[in-house]
């Protein structure tokens, strides 16, 4: 208690403890956030980033075209490692998306007001990450145009999907997740689009925002239902986000492969998803807040809180790793024990070493306040975590498959140039989508910031 009071009385050195920088009123919030889009105040680096993103997107198109021409044989997949980079990248991207839903739904239910300035951006990140993720299983089908075979519909073949398979669950989970994330994001945008409509000077923007805002006019009766709908969505998205990555983990856990067949997977996957997602939010936010001068809205307090959540989820992930080893030892299961030893000392030992370095050791730096306040250090750490989480999925997929029960069918696996190009290509796709979003839509929720501003003023008065 005394500690909390003490903290509040600290002089506000460079606004570190503020949720909104000093000197803002509700007009200046609109000007600062909406103005970026309406007056097209974009730094020159936007164009540079867009050029790089587009170039990588071209790489994606090339890689996909060649894949469809030749088939999945151009990838490094083989028997026994039939799941390679495609599934690694799928899990990596879906996981990144989870931070967006956590910020928009779970933190809303917990009344964490600081979520307000990052939720719009993080939700957009979710949508685009899920878009990238869904490409991988789709392309892995080999004949992606027949993807609808997995949906239950009466067909002339008289066939139905195998609903007992986690792969079928995955389709429903990811599609529901993408739809609900899009709905959540759009509902949050409606009042802001109305603000943009009313502030816009040129006709095209007025008409476009007018249509997209559905004619929103801020009626109290509408707000009443709106807030109810938003709360319901948050309440529905919270179990949804937990279910999605749990189901993704069932893709592994329901099988019998040593290293996959384990009950720790669902919680450990969900924590890992949030861990990588927050790392990605920081990777994106740190440069963007600087380039767009949004330090008043995404303050050091936000950065600090995000770093703390990253640390907490990172510790859960580290606990997950240690439990894998404990259960391997405790189970007395010979293949499980071999697999774990093989991970640490076998052919892929360097992946394990890099994983521990990235995800477990580097994360411990976040215990220090000085690191959490150092943007350059945080940016580098967040990138290391992104790499670490990719390596984690590499480890899970490859080391478990390459040497399982039958030594006669062991093999090795490496990604080919086409695995690289497709992966890097989706990063380009992601960057392009994100940059287009920043260019045409307010990246921070204006109405929620105004609401927060009002609440903070109200609090200050009492």
């Amino acid at each position, binding site marked *: 208690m005394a500690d909390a009071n003490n903290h509040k009385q600290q002089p506000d050195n460079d606004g570190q403890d503020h949720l909104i920088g000093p000197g803002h*009123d*509700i*007009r200046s919030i*609109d000007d600062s956030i909406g103005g970026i889009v309406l007056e097209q105040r974009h730094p020159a680096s936007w164009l540079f980033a867009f050029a790089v993103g587009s170039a990588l997107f071209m790489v994606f198109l090339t890689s996909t075209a060649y894949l469809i021409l030749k088939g999945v044989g151009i990838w490094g997949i083989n028997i026994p490692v039939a799941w390679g980079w495609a599934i690694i990248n799928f899990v990596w991207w879906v996981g990144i998306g989870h931070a967006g839903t956590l910020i928009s739904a779970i933190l809303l239910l917990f009344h964490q007001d600081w979520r307000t300035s990052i939720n719009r951006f993080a939700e957009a990140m979710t949508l685009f990450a899920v878009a990238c993720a869904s490409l991988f299983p789709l392309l892995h089908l080999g004949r992606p145009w027949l993807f609808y075979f997995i949906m*239950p519909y009466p067909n002339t073949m008289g*066939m*139905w*999907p*195998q*609903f*007992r398979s*986690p792969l079928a*669950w995955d389709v*429903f*989970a990811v*599609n*529901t997740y993408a*739809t*609900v994330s899009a*709905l*959540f994001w*759009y*509902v949050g945008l409606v*009042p802001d689009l*109305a*603000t943009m409509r*009313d*502030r816009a000077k040129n006709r095209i923007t007025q008409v476009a925002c*007018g*249509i997209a805002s*559905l*004619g*929103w*006019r*801020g*009626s*109290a*009766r*509408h*707000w*009443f*239902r*709106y*807030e*109810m*709908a938003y709360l*319901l*969505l948050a309440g*529905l*998205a919270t*179990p*949804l986000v937990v*279910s999605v990555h749990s*189901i993704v983990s*069932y893709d592994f856990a329901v099988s019998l492969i040593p290293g996959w067949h384990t009950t720790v997977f669902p919680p450990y996957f969900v924590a890992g998803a949030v861990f990588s997602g927050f790392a990605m939010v920081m990777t994106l936010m740190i440069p963007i807040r600087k380039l767009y001068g949004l330090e008043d809205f995404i303050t050091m307090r936000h950065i600090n809180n995000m770093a703390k959540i990253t640390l907490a989820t990172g510790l859960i992930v580290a606990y997950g790793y240690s439990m894998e080893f404990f259960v391997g030892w405790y189970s007395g299961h010979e293949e499980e024990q071999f697999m774990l030893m093989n991970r640490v000392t076998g052919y892929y030992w360097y992946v394990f070493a890099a994983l521990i370095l990235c995800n477990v050791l580097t994360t411990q730096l976040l215990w220090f306040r000085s690191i959490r306040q150092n943007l350059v250090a945080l940016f580098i750490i967040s990138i290391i975590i992104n790499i670490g989480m990719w390596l984690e999925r590499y480890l899970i997929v490859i080391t478990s498959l390459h040497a399982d029960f039958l030594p006669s069918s062991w093999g090795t696996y490496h990604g080919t140039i086409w695995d690289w190009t497709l992966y890097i290509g989706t990063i380009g796709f992601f960057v392009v989508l994100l940059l287009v979003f920043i260019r045409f839509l307010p990246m921070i929720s204006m*109405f*929620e910031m*105004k*609401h927060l501003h*009002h609440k903070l003023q109200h609090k200050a008065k009492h």
Partner: protein
Amino acid sequence: MEAVDNTPETYGVLAEYETPEALLDAAEKAYAAGYRKIDAYSPYPIEGLAEVMGVKKTILPALVLGAGLTGAIGGYLMQYVPSVILYPLNVGARPLNSWPAFIPISFEVAILLAASTAVIGMIALNGLPRPYHPLFNAESFERATQDRFFLCIEADDTQFDSAAVQTFLESTTPISITEVEA
């Protein structure tokens, strides 16, 4: 030939306020004065504003619950019917109605329907999309989505009388009062 009546009908009288507190106060007084066809407009939601105008609850949560239950049952049946009736696969004599395996998809379908209903229901109950609204004729009203707070007493209120309403609204100390054409 009959003379065309050019005098526009009135949609209502619109008062503009500087702060949310002033709007909340005015809305409360208007309701107390017996006006029922009133609505307030603000750039962000204001706690208790709809409530002082007599809005007590919305049917939305009930709709969402209904949609969620429909989704859960429908999702289950979507799996049950093909797996048990249309395409029964005997795998090691395991039961055809393997309900634990059907839970994830039932759950996802329930969430999908409930969330879609929350959004579509909210939009529909709000009477949106409605790109044109008489209030958009009031010049100051474009600030309703930015930084001003408005109260409108509508002409179809049984008590409505333009002059009396204007006098009443004057007493709530607004910044401006406008009569809005229908």
